[in-house]
């Protein structure tokens, strides 16, 4: 499996994602957002950070980066697209995922480890988890409050596009949504950071099964 980690100006979790993928034996590399070609990659990761400073709306400028047309193309080709934190925000801004991430219900950046439940165990991002399991995954964001109109939320629920939910909602997200995917199931975004929970040294390995899920999905397809 060959993976690209997109580095936008202001991305700051790009190397965390790269190292996590490499820990699982993935042939991963950083690709600048100034590039415009992603052919040859099986999976594309949009990492956390503050792209272009996020001085406007989070992800609102990054979606116009040259790389985003290639990301859209890859999504249409059915490749896996994974957006974490700022990457999730960019994917919603780009229209690759529905909804929007608003300022936290109680304004202010929060860094913590929060319990998540698996809303849909039959996805490329959750298949390695025990469906009944609660996992602790780090969060670090000021704008993680997932919002969508009622019709969109209903559709997300109906299609089982909600992948992860917060057990104790930290930011006011609608339906306790922590992560969603598109209808096809190949584009995924979540606010929590599984890449920060793969190494025992950090005291948390609950993110390992996220990467194992992706790997097994890709290998099954190959």
């Amino acid at each position, binding site marked *: 499996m060959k993976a690209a980690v997109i580095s936008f*100006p*202001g991305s*700051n*979790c790009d*190397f*965390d994602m790269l*190292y*996590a993928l490499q820990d699982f034996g993935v042939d991963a590399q950083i690709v600048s957002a100034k590039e415009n070609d992603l052919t040859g990659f099986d999976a594309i990761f949009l990492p*956390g*950070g*503050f792209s*272009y*400073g*996020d*001085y406007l709306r989070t992800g609102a400028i990054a979606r116009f980066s040259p790389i985003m047309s290639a990301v859209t193309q890859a999504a249409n080709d059915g490749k896996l697209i994974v957006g974490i934190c700022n990457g999730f925000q960019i994917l919603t801004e780009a229209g690759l995922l529905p909804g929007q991430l608003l300022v936290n219900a109680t304004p*202010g*950046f*929060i*860094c*913590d480890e929060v319990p998540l439940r698996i809303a849909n165990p039959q996805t490329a991002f959750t298949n390695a988890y025990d469906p009944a399991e609660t996992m602790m995954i*780090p969060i*670090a964001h*000021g704008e993680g409050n997932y919002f969508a109109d009622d019709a969109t939320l209903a559709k997300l629920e109906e299609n089982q596009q909600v992948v992860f939910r917060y057990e104790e909602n930290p930011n006011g997200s609608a339906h306790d949504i922590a992560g969603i995917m598109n209808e096809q199931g190949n584009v995924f975004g979540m606010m929590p*950071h599984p*890449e*920060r929970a*793969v*190494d025992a*040294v*950090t*005291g948390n390995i609950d993110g390992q099964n996220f990467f194992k899920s992706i790997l097994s999905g890709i290998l099954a397809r190959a």
Partner: protein
Amino acid sequence: MTTVTSNELTPEQVRDSKIYTQWGLTEAEYDLIVAELKRLPNFTEAGIFSGMWSEHVSYKKSKPILRKFWSTNERVLQGPGEGAGILDIGDGQAVVFKAESHNHPSFVEPYEGAATGVGGILRDIFSMGAQPIAVLDSLRFGELDDAHTKHIVDGVIAGIAGYGNAIGIPTVGGEISFDNVYAGNPLVNVMAVGLMDQAAMQVGQAKGVGNAIIYVGAKTGRDGINGASFASAEFSTEHESDRSAVQVGDPFLEKLVMDATLKAVREHSDIIVGIQDMGAAGLLSSSSEMAAKAGMGITLDLNKVPQRETHMTPYELMLSESQERMLLVVKRGEEQAILDLFQAADLDAVVIGEVTDNGRYVLSFNDEIVADVPIDFLTHAPKQDLPMAEPKRLAAFTADQYQPELTDVKQTILDLLAQPTIASKASLFRHFDSMVRADTAIKPGGDASLVRVRGTKKALAMTTDVNARYLYLNPRVGAKMAVAEAARNIVATGALPIGITDGLNFGSPDNPEVYYELDQAVAGINDVAKQLNTPIISGNVSLYNETDGQAIYPTPMIGMVGLLDNVDHATTIGFKQAGDAIYVIGATQDSFNGSEIQKMQTGTIDGQLFGFDDAAEMAAQTLVRQAIGQQLVASAHDLAEGGLIVGLLESSFAGHLSFNVNVNLASQYLFAETPSRFVVSVAAENSAAFEALAGGLATRIGDVTTGDDVVVTTTTEEIVLSREAAQKVYQESISWQLKA
């Protein structure tokens, strides 16, 4: 001969109006300049002398004392005098660290003051060629019952979060405490730690005639003009106009500058001669100090300086403290590679001048020379030996130790847990990203934080500490205790303390009593640093922390770094398992003057400080480090503010377990703050080996339990406390008080 830019005062007008006194130059200093130049300095020249000779840049008043710092040992690769100090950590790697204060700006404009404090110290780290890996904050505020203090707390926390989170360097630790003396003078000290290959080491020197001076990063604006002079004066509530001296930060831009600078160091170390960040006194101090260190001269064409405002004058360009700017010296003829690299990152990068061999600092603007002065003279402010006198209060303190008044011990414990200085700061630290870079092995809330060195088994422990109340009662012994406590924090993780950076926050040095406190604090730091083999390799001085004549407590923040050889041995403060034995290391004595319980019960601190036993301290630390090294210890926590009972409860809260102990002391000693103590827990199978190692140093007082209650038996009573109730007070007290 230099000329004058239009609309500025002429040299004669500068002399007659004495405008330089508003910038902090004294008349005697002005006369020295006239004598050296053999003519009147023009407006720009008078301005650059005022910046370079300010205390904040020149340390002219503190230098005679700072020279006394012990700063060499076998690990030191770079001591004080550069952007940051550097220590060898083996395997060709080095750790780089320094602290900086942003006290004055944070009072005037809390968000930007704190944010740019983070930005400034990070530039000090990456200008040495090191990747910043962690930030710690040492903060002091007034009491939380004051609305203005709450505003400052909110702003400072948001500013640190806004900058540190965005640039992607984790804020892993630090400490926060509250005392009335900081109400008009909050302290915002930021420590940054970086990691580098020794081969990549850079210094801020401008060597080699003809080499290019390259300006990179943000454009220069009118923010923070002459901020260094602003930081070198006392506050007065009458001077609200000080606001213009605060800079505005842009963490996104700094991230680009940081990444590009580190890339330049990686790819072009052969052509980079020197790197320096533009901090206090901006372009002026960075350029003149680089040339002075190399014994060279420099010439700059100010029209080439990237500017974001129009009609800026040479005075403004030189003294602006706009953020996110760096100065590089690059070999002549090789400039293009560096310019290309920065421009590819969408950053300004311009050759603005060159190194000369005439020892002069020459500035040109609109084809005229606007300053021409000897660099050596410019960068060496006249030294000032100031008088010192023992503060009168010290002689007045009585030797008797305060005796806590205990009618309801349970309630006293709960009240103590609610004190802002004791209560958990998690609700504030929660705003900081402590985990980005995915290397944080021990997060905020323990004794020291621990950051793994990726690709090795090593980890770096780091902490900041000082209890200024102790220094107020005894500057020398209080300073010793600050270093000792910082080291106990490091040791409790299992790491070996290896070095110190400091943030010396004091009142006006022109007050002989304050100058004495500074001298004694430095002596006290040296006393313990030598015994620990932790040289003081960098630091910062912030004087004039007075508002309307009210000085802060002497507050020398100690930032310490430790090295842990095997990160798998890392030990945290939380109890691990019911049935583990609890030991106290070190003796508990009658130590109450300056304690949290004295402050809580009397509203003040008073009396002679209790003693510090150097030998006992070293013995306790050695024992804990050895015991962790032999993997005999399940948890370790140093005892500090609030004493034994607070230490036990913190280990209990962190581990979600209770305890049942018999301390064999009268109840009041639960609150004694005797230094040189730890609480450790030891699994049953290790207790024999631990006791053999400890000899008489450790006393077994009880066990870790699973119950809902914690139980403490003293010689006077049995205290039973609901852990959940106590933890709620400890966790939520700060939030309640901020909202109240």
